[in-house]
């Protein structure tokens, strides 16, 4: 697998920005989940929130949706705020038609709005 198909987690201020590559395998998605949790746990990171960026992803099926919801719940359990960004119109339609429930996950239109939401949570 090429390097640009790996998940990545960046620190921007008090937020972690977690991004999925364009063509993630199931194990890439699991790997991102572990990466996010271990970065929150690092005491020097001091993350208030995690932006889950799926903007590069073209397909969200039931496995993927379940992992997003699970990851968001785990982030919350660890005391940080999860915000999902980058849901395209086609993905929004498909997820709704499938009856997949992302209802509890906070969403934002873009990374800037997501980071602003995380700051607002914190104040």
């Amino acid at each position, binding site marked *: 697998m090429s390097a640009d198909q790996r998940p990545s987690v960046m620190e921007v201020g008090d937020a972690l920005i977690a991004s999925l590559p364009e063509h993630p395998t199931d*194990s890439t998605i699991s790997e991102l989940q572990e990466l996010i949790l271990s970065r929150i746990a690092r005491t020097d990171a001091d993350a208030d929130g995690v932006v889950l960026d799926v903007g590069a992803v073209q397909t969200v099926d*039931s496995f993927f949706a379940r992992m997003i919801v699970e990851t968001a719940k785990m982030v919350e359990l660890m005391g940080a705020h999860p915000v999902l960004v980058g849901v395209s119109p086609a993905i929004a*339609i498909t997820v709704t038609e499938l009856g997949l429930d992302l209802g509890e996950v906070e969403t934002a239109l873009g990374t800037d709005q997501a980071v602003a939401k995380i700051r607002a949570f914190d104040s």
Partner: protein
Amino acid sequence: MTDPDVAGSLSIDGDDDIVTARMTIRQTASDLGFGITDTTRIVTAVSELARNIHLYAGSGTMRWRTRRDGERPVFEIIFDDDGPGIDDIEKALESGQSSANGMGQGLPGAKKLMDEFDLETSPGAGTTVTIGKYLQ
């Protein structure tokens, strides 16, 4: 649609092949003239069914072709495996009711997203799922 006669096949053995299946069908659907939303529906159904092969049968084959239903072109994709088959078809087609891994969205999800859906299976004799989308 200038050339309706596309056909091909792909072996599904590992989770990398689920990605290849998605990419291949996305390109094919787009070439056939499907819009972004229908293409996403088709690719999502493919992702569910390719994963089912990987999870439950270990390996199998995805084949695709176009055919005509009267005047209407249909993009058809067939998932074939020699896995354990499905015991209770009705239960497998109910959302959230399938047994293994507590997932159970694959078959009902694929059915919801497509215009045609056919399931042939029996315990010990493998599973064949055929899905189709009409090209308007």
